[in-house]
């Protein structure tokens, strides 16, 4: 009987020690294996990023050559007076892009991010771009505003930015389209 008690108590204490030692010790063999796999995964991640980069560039070179490439970005400066909801983009009278924003996207824009709303091809010459912005404006009212820009596309890549800014003079949002040099 006493032996059984000793066995039981010893068993329990062994378990106890096992739990306690789990904090300090790790299995050396498995740790090495894990490290090897972790390093392999890390190396693969780098390679996948590189491949993704090459494919990104290849896609642009193939579909949007520099001579005709035309991109439109969108940014929100502060976003105090407009909670962005949706954007529609027209190029030469045709709708080429529209986007509904999630909260996460709006936050990313308000924190200084810029969304590439559209990428396409345009011939050299004069073109007209119109952006329609919708959202919740001051006093929680539905807000819509449009901005238009006529611009000259040369033989280089063209990039425009739809800029939504806070106008402190009248506490209203302001939408403008600017050209990146």
């Amino acid at each position: 009987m006493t032996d059984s008690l000793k066995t039981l108590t010893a068993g329990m204490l062994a378990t106890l020690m096992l739990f306690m030692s789990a904090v300090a010790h790790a299995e050396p063999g498995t740790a090495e294996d894990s490290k090897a796999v972790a390093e392999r995964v890390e190396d693969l991640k780098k390679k996948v990023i590189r491949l993704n980069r090459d494919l990104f560039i290849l896609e642009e070179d193939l579909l949007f050559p520099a001579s005709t490439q035309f991109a439109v970005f969108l940014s929100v400066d502060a976003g105090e007076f407009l909670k962005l909801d949706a954007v529609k983009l027209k190029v030469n009278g045709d709708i080429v892009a529209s986007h509904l924003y999630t909260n996460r996207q709006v936050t990313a824009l308000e924190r200084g991010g810029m969304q590439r709303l559209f990428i396409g091809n345009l011939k050299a010459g004069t073109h007209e771009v119109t952006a329609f912005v919708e959202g919740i404006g001051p006093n929680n009212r539905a807000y819509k505003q449009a901005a238009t820009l006529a611009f000259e596309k040369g033989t280089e890549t063209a990039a425009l930015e739809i800029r939504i800014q806070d106008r402190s003079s009248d506490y209203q949002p302001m939408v403008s389209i600017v050209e990146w040099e």
Partner: protein
Amino acid sequence: MTPPVAFVARVYKPRIGARLVAVAAGCLSLMLGVPAAVADGTLERAKDPVYGWVLYNYHQGEAFEALTLLDVARERGGIRGHGDYPTLLEGGLMLSYGITREARDLFTRLLEDANTNDSVALAPEVRSQAWFYLGKVFYLEGDYPLAYENLQRVDAEVLQESDSELYAEWLYLRAQLAMMSERYRGKGGDKAGDETLIENLRKRLKHSGPWAHYLSYNLAMAGIAADDLTQAQQRLRELITSMEGETPKDELVSEHRALLDKSRLSLARLYLREARFDDALTVLGAMPLDGVFTDRALFDYAVAATGQGEMQRALDTLDALSQRALFVPWREQVPYARGYVLEQMRRPREALGAFSQAAKHYEIRSNELIAARQALTEENLMRRLNVLRNSDEIITDSYGRLRVTPIDFGLSEVLATESFQQALGELNELYRMQALLVQREDQLSTFETMLETRRLQRQRRSRETHVELEQQQAGDWVEAQGAFRAKIEAALVEEDAEFFMTTEQKALKYRLDKVAATLAQLGSNANDTTGQRKTYKRMKAYFDWTVANDYGVNRWAAQKQLSELSREVEEFQSQRAAIELLMAGDKKHNELAGRLARNAAELQSLKTQVQGALAQARSILMGRLDSALEQQNKELRRYLLASRHAQARLADQLFRASQSTEAAND
């Protein structure tokens, strides 16, 4: 009942599983703070749309996309107007995406440059926090020398001033490292003034909430490991007293309770080890019945009661424990313990029944485990885990570890280990890579189709151009130009003024020649034509004079026209040659096709590598699970054997007792 395993893991590996999980997120917010710090607290506008686009992805936690864009920007000459901040951002993104070694090199390069190079104007707090996060990542990965190296670079005062929470964590990590080895105790070794470095760090941590408690707990555990049980008990008692007197913030209540219970449990076990059953019962009795460690406390309570000779109390406790629905491996002891206690209570028949039940239970469970081991596949494993998902996407923490709880609680212990979590996370990461590569393979095949379509269109246009060129009769034009040039050159040699006459002059000459012909027909004797002949002569003389006079101008005009024509013909010929060259071969197409082929080959090679890594990760994961199940089975077999021995012993005892009774009756 038992809360998610991750919670248990948090206590076993103090804070590693939970608090430190926020490292990457912290790194990201640090990097986010970077531009702000420069621009006096206001967000700086992107001066390069690509940088803005990177930030857009980065703020949404899309590290892979942001890293790709940064790589694209680098390939195209870099991001303009933001100095070294894109690189700093890249470092943070790399940490978040799990490319830690590369991130370390990048940070080291950048932060060391910042010390020597004025163009890298990093605010001191940004620099200190970056070193801190880097050190923390290495600590998490178990690379302690590097963790120590980076944590040592932190400016303590700057960090304390900029973020007291990080400062506390920094002290904690330093103490943890110092506990591990003397190598991590700095130049002064174990001494910091009159006290040990660890003690000094602990004192500095005193008012920093949970970190100080975790450190105290870990120091007690280190005491146990060093066989200094008196000191360990003393530390645990102090910790329990200190924690009992505290009221934590709402968000820390459950964590506080869990650590307090864990400390009580550890102290009680130390008392049990020294057979101080009364003390153990007192400590365990103070534990709540709805805590994380209630089940273990109940079992230890039963052990203490047994040791104290209070068998009924022990039995009641074990019965209460048997009623618990969830099953974890350590609780396999309960059926055997019930039999043992009943035997101690001198109730051999009930004890025999309990041991018999225990043996049956162990046998069934053992067979289940054998079957589980034999049918062990990744699919089976996944079926036994509940992975947290957001629509179709598996949710992971900032380190890529899956949010997972076991459906089969037999897995909870193995799942709680850091190595298993890491292996599971890596497996998931490799699957994501595999899916991405399949997606990219589709994309490449679309590109191939596009390129082929382009080639065919080009061929068609080349054929059309050929026909058009033939219709232009380019050879005739060139021949005509050559003949014209020869005529002009001959006229120049002969100074043939007539040749260079203007169209008007030629018309006048024609008319004069006509008049001359008419006069010639009339004859030289005709008196009535004298006047006309005079007029003709005068006109002719004037005409000749005009032609001679205009010769220089006309010749120059003809030469000018000839040279213009020559130029046009030359341009025409060079254009034609260029078109013919373009038609003969497409350099652009070949270049794109070459890139496409290279990318396709790289993609295939990556797919093979991912496949290999997947097999390795899978085998490690399965190996771990298999050893865990094997270990469980060994334990079960031990209990089964002990139960059967007890059964035999009791049956024998009862048989002999019945025989003695019969003999007495006879």
